[in-house]
C-alpha cells in the first residue's frame, strides 16, 4: 500500500467512529494529570495543618510540621509537569511578565506565587524562626550557614518576639485556608469553565477538585507520618493517627457524595452528550473510573474507615490498614484526575466517536517524566525534614 494511505490507516486505527481531525491526538497527556494531582496534595496537606493551627485540633500536633513541609515540597514541584509538558522551559518566566487578567491560565503564575511565598513560605518562616536561631548556634558548617541565611541573620528570640511570630503565623494560616481553597478551586475552575467539553463543564468541578485535594493531601500526610516514625524508630501516636483517619473518612464521604451528585445530575439531566459519555464511562474509562477510582480508591476506604470508627483492632493492625488505605486513596485520587483530564479528551465533541490514549515510558511526555516529578518532591521533603526536623522543635502550644 502507498505510504500516504498506510499513514492514514494507522492514524484511523486509533479511532472508533467519527472524530474531528484535531481530536485524534490527545494534547493533554499524563503530565497534565499530574499537575492537578500535585497541587491537590499541596492544598490537602495545608488544610490538614490548618486543622491543628486554626481549628485547634490539638491531637494532630505531631503532623503539623510534617504537613506544612510536605505541602511546601510538593508546591515547589507543582509547576514542573506544566513546564515539561510545554517543552520550552526557557520561556516559562513569560507568564509572570505579561499576565492577562481575562485568561484563567495566564493568571496562574500569580495564584501560584501567592500561595508559595505569602502562605507556605511565610508560615514556615514564622513557625521555624526561633528554632533556626537556636539551631544556628548549636550546629556548624553547612547547616549553620543555612539556618543563618534562612533566619535572615536575626537573633531576637525574646518571648515577646516569639509571641509576635506565633500571632502572625496564625493570621497567615487564616489567610492560607481560603488561599488553599482558592488554589485548588482554581485548578478545578480551569476544567469546569471549558463549556465545549461536557465531561468537564460543571460548576461542581472546583468543589469536587477541592474535596478530592483534601482527601489526597490528608492521605499523603498520614502515609508520610507512618513512614517517618518507622524510619526514626519512634512509637507512633495512635490517637493522632486515628484522628487523621477519622478526618480522612469524613472528607472522603463528602467527596464521594459530591462526585455522586455530579454523576446523578448528569444522568438526570441527560443532555445531548449523555449517550457519548455513557459509552465512554462504561468503555474506555471502565477500569480507571469504576475499579481504581470508585471501588479501590473510594468505596473500600470508606467502608474500612467507617468500620474502624466503631471497631478498633490492635494498633499494629490499624496502622497496617491505614497504610494500605492511604495508598489506595492516593491511587484513587490519581485516577480521578486521570479520568477528568484524559477522559475529557477521549470522546469526540461530535459525540459520534472516540480516540485512544497511548504514551510511552521514555520521552518528554512519557511515564518516566511523570515518575520523576513524583519522586522529586519526596527528595525535597527528605532534605527539608533533615534541615528543619519538626520533632526537634521546641514545643509551642499555638494558642
Amino acid at each position, binding site marked *: *500500500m*502507498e505510504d500516504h494511505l498506510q499513514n*492514514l490507516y494507522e492514524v484511523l486505527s486509533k479511532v472508533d467512529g467519527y472524530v474531528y481531525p484535531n481530536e485524534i491526538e490527545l494534547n493533554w497527556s499524563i503530565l497534565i494529570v499530574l499537575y492537578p494531582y500535585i497541587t491537590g496534595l499541596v492544598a490537602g496537606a495545608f488544610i490538614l495543618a490548618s486543622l491543628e493551627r486554626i481549628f485547634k485540633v490539638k491531637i494532630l500536633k505531631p503532623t503539623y510540621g510534617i504537613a506544612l513541609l510536605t505541602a511546601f515540597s510538593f508546591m515547589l514541584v507543582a509547576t514542573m509537569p506544566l513546564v515539561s509538558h510545554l517543552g520550552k522551559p526557557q520561556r516559562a518566566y513569560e507568564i509572570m*511578565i505579561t499576565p492577562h487578567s481575562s485568561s484563567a491560565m495566564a493568571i496562574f503564575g500569580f495564584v501560584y506565587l501567592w500561595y508559595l511565598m505569602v502562605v507556605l513560605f511565610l508560615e514556615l518562616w514564622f513557625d521555624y524562626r526561633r528554632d533556626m536561631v537556636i539551631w544556628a548556634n548549636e550546629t556548624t558548617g553547612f547547616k549553620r550557614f543555612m539556618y543563618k541565611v534562612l533566619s535572615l541573620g*536575626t537573633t531576637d528570640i525574646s518571648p515577646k*518576639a516569639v509571641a*509576635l511570630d506565633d500571632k502572625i503565623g496564625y493570621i497567615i494560616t487564616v489567610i492560607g485556608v481560603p488561599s488553599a481553597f482558592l488554589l485548588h478551586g482554581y485548578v478545578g475552575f480551569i476544567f469546569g469553565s471549558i463549556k465545549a467539553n461536557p465531561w468537564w463543564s460543571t460548576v461542581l468541578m472546583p468543589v469536587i477538585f477541592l474535596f478530592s485535594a483534601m482527601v489526597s493531601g490528608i492521605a499523603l500526610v498520614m502515609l508520610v507520618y507512618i513512614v517517618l516514625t518507622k524510619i526514626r524508630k519512634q512509637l507512633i501516636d495512635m490517637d493522632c493517627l486515628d484522628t487523621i483517619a477519622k478526618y480522612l473518612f469524613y472528607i472522603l464521604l463528602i467527596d464521594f457524595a459530591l462526585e455522586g451528585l455530579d454523576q446523578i445530575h448528569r444522568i438526570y439531566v441527560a443532555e445531548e452528550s449523555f449517550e457519548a459519555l455513557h459509552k465512554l464511562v462504561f468503555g474506555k474509562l471502565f477500569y480507571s473510573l469504576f475499579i481504581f477510582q470508585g471501588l479501590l480508591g473510594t468505596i473500600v476506604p470508606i467502608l474500612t474507615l467507617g468500620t474502624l470508627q466503631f471497631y478498633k483492632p490492635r494498633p499494629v493492625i490499624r496502622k497496617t490498614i491505614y497504610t494500605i488505605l492511604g495508598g489506595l486513596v492516593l491511587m484513587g485520587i490519581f485516577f480521578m484526575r486521570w479520568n477528568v483530564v484524559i477522559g475529557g479528551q477521549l470522546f469526540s465533541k461530535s459525540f459520534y466517536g472516540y480516540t485512544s490514549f497511548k504514551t510511552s515510558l521514555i520521552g518528554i511526555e512519557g511515564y518516566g517524566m511523570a515518575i520523576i516529578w513524583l519522586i522529586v518532591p519526596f527528595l525535597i521533603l527528605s532534605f527539608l525534614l533533615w534541615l528543619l526536623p519538626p520533632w526537634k522543635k521546641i514545643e509551642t502550644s499555638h494558642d
Partner: protein
Amino acid sequence: MPQHLKRLIGVFVIFILFFLVMRQVLRPKSFGELGHFRADAIYENTLRPMHYAVADSCTKCHKDIRSDKDLGFHAKLKCEVCHGPALKHATFANKFKNKQLPDSLVLYKPGERKDCAVCHQRNAARIKITFDTINTTMIHQVDIMKHHPVDPKTNAALKCIDCHNPHQP
C-alpha cells in the same frame, strides 16, 4: 517594629523591586502597542520570504490550461494547490523561453495515485457525496484501492491520470 520583621519586609521589598525591574527588562519592547501581544511580531512576519504566486500569474502564460480547467470540477482549484508554491517560477520562468528551465524553477507535476488520494481517498470525516447532489463545492470520494486494485502479481496499478485529465477530470 522588631528587627526580624524589618528584615523580612526588606527581603520582600527587594524581591518585588527585582521583579518589577526584571519585568521592565524582559518585557518585549513593542508589547502592548496594538494589543496584548508583541506588535513587532506582525512586522517580523512581513519580512518572511514569500513562496506563493497567485492564480492570475499562472494564467498569463498558461491560458490553454486555464480554459481547460474552467470547464471542469477543478475550476475553482488554484494551480498551486497541486503544483506547489510557484512564486519563483512565475517571476523568472519567462526568461528561459525555449530553453531548459533550471531545476529550481521546475514545478512539481503530481501524477501518482497518492497525489490524487490527498483529496479523493474516501474518508469518513469528509462530507458524503451522492451523484444527485454533486456540485463543484464537494469533493468526490473514491476508495482508490477498490476503484483500481493493485495487481497482486506484478504490483502494477493504473494511475488516476491514465483515465482522468487532472485539469478537467
